[in-house]
């Protein structure tokens, strides 16, 4: 359907090209015109915004941006702030948990659904359903589930285990795990779907060949199917990684950073210091550090991925 629309759009250009041969700049003019908004967005909003932010992170801007340079002061202050260090630590724990568990659980669910079972559609819908909820709703739901007075702890105690205790959101040392549970519940369904699509893309003949050779199923998955699914894994990785770095709303809805500052995350630090504390410079410095961490991860990967192909 989409393809047909595209050809319909390009037809006038084709007619034009019959009369005279257009130069390279005007070839596929429609496509180029259509991508101008995105090019502008990328240049002005992404690149421009990034440069602007990094530049102003070296200033002492308070409520309004001012070009009054103070060198690396904002960064010194940032790395001496306990709240920022806690945020980083939380992000690392949260990141490791979501990366490992959403990949493992997502792949396992997909592999199980791929066994030509009955009611696959129904199960798929159920697993994917949490993804239809925003992080705010997810956060609120899990806030109630994990609340010791109403949620899981309360139910289990009512069943008779009166000493049962499960209140991650009210315990500073494990609060980040409580948040991770909610994130996994929300995000794993999508990973499962991506994995399932990847599994369906594997040629049936490969399975037949593996069966003829007498390779056990788990070995086929581990050594044949997963390596073949590399592009799917990379897509999934990018989606999960982006979700990790930008985590904000889930924390706000579940704990708003509490108890105390035990579940703070970098994105929340940026927001709080830019808007609550009216200290743009400090917020920009923190967001630059977030960008830097992404760059450190992305650049070596991109180098390996794209550099090798040349």
């Amino acid at each position, binding site marked *: 359907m989409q393809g047909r629309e595209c050809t319909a759009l390009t037809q006038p250009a084709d007619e034009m090209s019959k009369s005279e041969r257009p130069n390279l700049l005007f070839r596929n003019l429609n496509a180029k015109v259509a991508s101008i908004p995105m090019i502008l967005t990328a240049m002005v909003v992404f690149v421009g915004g990034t440069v602007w932010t990094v530049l102003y992170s070296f200033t002492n801007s308070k409520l309004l941006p001012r070009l009054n340079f103070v060198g690396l002061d904002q960064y010194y*202050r940032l790395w001496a702030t306990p709240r920022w260090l806690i945020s980083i630590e939380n992000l690392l724990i949260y990141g490791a948990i979501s990366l490992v568990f959403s990949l493992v659980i997502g792949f396992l669910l997909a592999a199980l659904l791929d066994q030509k079972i009955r009611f696959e559609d129904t199960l798929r819908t159920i697993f994917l359903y949490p993804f239809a909820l925003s992080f705010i709703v997810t956060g609120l739901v899990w806030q109630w589930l994990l609340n010791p007075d109403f949620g899981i702890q309360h139910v289990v105690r009512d069943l008779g285990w009166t000493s049962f205790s499960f209140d991650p959101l009210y315990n500073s040392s494990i609060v980040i795990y409580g948040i991770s549970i909610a994130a996994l519940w929300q995000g794993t369904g999508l990973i499962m779907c991506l994995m399932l699509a990847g599994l369906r893309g594997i040629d049936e003949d490969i399975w037949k060949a593996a069966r003829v050779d007498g390779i056990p199923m788990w070995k086929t998955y581990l050594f044949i199917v997963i390596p073949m699914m590399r592009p799917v894994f990379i897509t999934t990785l990018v989606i999960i990684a982006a979700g990790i770095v930008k985590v904000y709303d889930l924390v706000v809805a579940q704990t708003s*950073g509490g108890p*105390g500052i035990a579940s703070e995350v970098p994105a929340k630090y940026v927001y709080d210091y830019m808007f*609550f*504390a*009216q*200290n743009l410079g*400090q917020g920009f410095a923190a967001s630059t550090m977030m960008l830097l961490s992404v760059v450190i991860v992305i650049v070596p990967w991109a180098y390996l991925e794209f550099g090798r192909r040349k």
Partner: protein
Amino acid sequence: MRYRFLTAALAATAALQFAGQAAATDLEVTHWWTSGGEAAAVAELAKAFDATGNHWVDGAIAGSGGTARPIMISRITGGDPMGATQFNHGRQAEELVQAGLMRDLTDVATKGKWTDVVRPKSLLDGCTIDGKIYCVPVNIHSWQWLWLSNEAFAKAGVPLPKDWNEFVAAAPALEKAGIIPLAVGGQAWQSSGAFDVLLAAVGGTDTFLKVYKDKDAKFAAGPEVAKVFKAADDARKMAKNTNVQDWNQATNLVITGKAGGQIMGDWAQGEFQVAGKTAGKDYTCLPGLGLNEVIATGGDAFYFPLLKDADKSKAQEVLAETLLDPKTQVAFNLKKGSLPVRGDVDLNAANDCMKKGLAILAKGAVIPWTDQLLSQDTQKQKEDLFAEFFAKPELTVEDAQKRFADLIASAD
């Protein structure tokens, strides 16, 4: 009084005729007054403004000042200003004024003789930047109150404490009766505010000013402030079972007798009123925690962004006058639980606690509040520190004080 009111109404009509339009001018007013008592109070302001022939468009933003202020500021800096907006007077809107985004109200102020009627003088000082007046203070809110539930103490079988020290001593008895001694909500500003109150009450006025006004870091690391941290340590131990977030939920624990007391500003009184409780009978208030009877002259004020629309600018003037009108002042402050900014109004209807506050005000025992003394940046760092301190027992008093002193050293 009535005369002023009429003048205001006439001015409004004149403005309307001038514009040649029959419709009243809509003025959007943003604020963060959303709890029961606060909403009742703001309705009084809206009523008074509507009576001038204009229309108050209510722009309440839920979720306390911390949530509301960024929204207000981005609307003003983003070129979509409202007609008027609440801030705490002091330094919250300082940069907006310096950037020329706010309206200079000096003319309206001279006409209304604000310098004569507004007391204490420090209120108007909070609105003045470079000799020009930029906001209308509407009330005096003071943080220095300890609210006690008479019911809770009766249940625990201990007499009502007369000051903070007695309260701390009564804590074990309260705990034994299954009552949380001190309710402190989870929001960061509550624990940070409670500390500031302790600083002024346990440490005394001089200590408070030396730390926050002179920003003396060496003093903040010294033995005087160590005493205050000791008191804060007591407070966090007494508060450790409070599992609520919002301040009014914490106040509700005191209202229902589930908690013994709460350190909270006089806005808590509005909640007691909405719940139908009587001061002195159902609850007791101790200004300055019973140790140092001072009140801070913080509070709320309305700022007026610079608008291009002539009608709306006229309506802003009318609103500014209405807010300081004696009748509005009384109606609003009685509902809000705060003190009026004019000394010449009749407050016979005031209850026990408000009368205590008025008496302290008359004595002149006032201190400036942190909103006036510290930048938002420093306030936020302070909030982070005390949110952590109250939630994390492993953070020792000594470490916390050291961090506090560092914070004061870099404060602005």
